[in-house]
């Protein structure tokens, strides 16, 4: 939903919201591997979680524009502090390790740590993978579009 910004160094290319979105989507093994690199200096305070819980998904229906609760979504959330910077992540599903790792990476960018560019690179790679998946999905869907012919 959020949009990338484009200015200067790679770390400036992503808004905090877009970074959080992409860290929420990034592959778990890549997150954990990069977080381990970040944590070599052992500077980490876990503020919250990682905790498995739910988000109530609320929608606004298009007829009367009324809100209603569709149902809940399983999520994992974590928040950390690293070198004075807060890092936060919430991912769908039940994966404490990946979520904690993503929060560490979020803090790494906020603290402009040594792996910050690598974190942004991971985010941008995730974005490309997501776009490629959307294209693959459309390739399957496009031939199913119905085109009607007028009868004389």
């Amino acid at each position: 939903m959020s949009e990338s910004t484009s200015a200067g160094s790679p770390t400036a290319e992503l808004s905090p919201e877009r970074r959080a979105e992409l860290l929420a989507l990034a592959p778990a093994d890549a997150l954990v591997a990069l977080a381990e690199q970040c944590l070599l200096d052992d500077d980490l305070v876990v503020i919250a979680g990682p905790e498995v819980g739910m988000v109530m998904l609320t929608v606004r229906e298009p007829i009367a524009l009324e809100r209603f609760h569709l149902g809940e979504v399983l999520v994992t959330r974590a928040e950390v502090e690293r070198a004075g910077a807060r890092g936060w992540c919430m991912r769908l599903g039940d994966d404490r390790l990946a979520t904690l790792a993503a929060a560490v990476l979020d803090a790494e960018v906020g603290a402009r740590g040594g792996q910050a560019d690598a974190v942004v690179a991971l985010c941008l790679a995730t974005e490309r993978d997501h776009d490629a998946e959307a294209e693959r999905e459309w390739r399957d869907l496009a031939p199913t579009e119905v085109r009607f012919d007028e009868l004389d």
Partner: protein
Amino acid sequence: MGYVAAKGGLEAIRAAEELVRRRRNSGTSPWLETSQLTERLRLAVDRVIGEGGLWAPDLAARAFRQAEGDVIEASHLVRSYRSTLPRLAYSEPVDMDHLEVLRRIVPAYRNPPGPQLLGRTLDYTGRLIDFTPDDVAQAAANCEAPTEAEEGPAADADTASDDAARRPGRLYRMLRDLDLVVDRTNPDDPEPYDITRQPARPGAPRSARLSTMARAETGALVQLWYRNILGPDNHLHEITLGEVRHGHLPVPVAHPRTGRPVAIGRVRVTEVEAIEDLDGIDEDGSRFDVGYGLCFGHNERKAIAMANLDISVHRDRGRSALEQSVLQTTDGLDASGFLEHLKLPHYVTFRSMVERKMARRSDEARGRAQAVHGLGGDEPDPELNNEELCR
């Protein structure tokens, strides 16, 4: 007969549980991975998600496997698990125009805004069992799987990036622009009712009905719809469907530091708009009204029934028991739980019923004896034992 407290059966219950586990998990077939269920039996898993009220595909697949394919039992497992979890946040209200379609048809109108995409559907497939031998089908599937090298750019990349294709406009808006639908906009924007915290009862706001139907049992909604179309209740017309959509919906939550929305992922939902031809004496017959259905996963039957029932309850305005039926009889867990409890021992209940029957027979016998022997007659019925007569 007297009442006797009893206990027992624990060992038998454990043995029955173990029998289920052993028969389910062993056998000659390969281990059933949850990924097989989410990929190949997605409609069943989607029902578990929808009726469990929790978007968690892997968890739903695990529950479905544990329940040996029983959707309601699996939904029960999901709801039980759900009850152990904290609610960490409420999403930002999602504008349904953000739905990215995987399928979209408009039965009411040939040229709606945006494409009509059949997508992944069995609707137009002949109802013929596929007898292709497994090895042949498997070989064909392997040939169909695209390799990385084969995956070039999309056939129509311009269309892929086109919001009009993936987020098409709505027929409802066309009708509204033509002033052909009643304005139902609620300027008060009431807080949505939370059915997980407080059971909904008749008189509850519409948001309670929508939430209730979103996690209702599919068969219950379809049955209620059908009963109202062809059955005795007759509260429903045969409504025209405006939109039938299946697609991805983002899950936006507020970023803890900036407060701006962050889409932490997406869920799949089915959305339906049902156009009702108003013909009541107190209704605006020059316009239509529209009902709305939305549920987790791909479940068009459920969303269609929901949209139909939404507009029907709205039009009924509490005149019949329809709202009560929607709110109180469509939950799969409620209904199945009540039904299945009948299998539990009812020894005391039944014994008391037997005793009432015996007492009644005793009274009747006494009455017959009095009729034969006069008012003071106290000759006992030889077929009844004295103990019962003296009660």
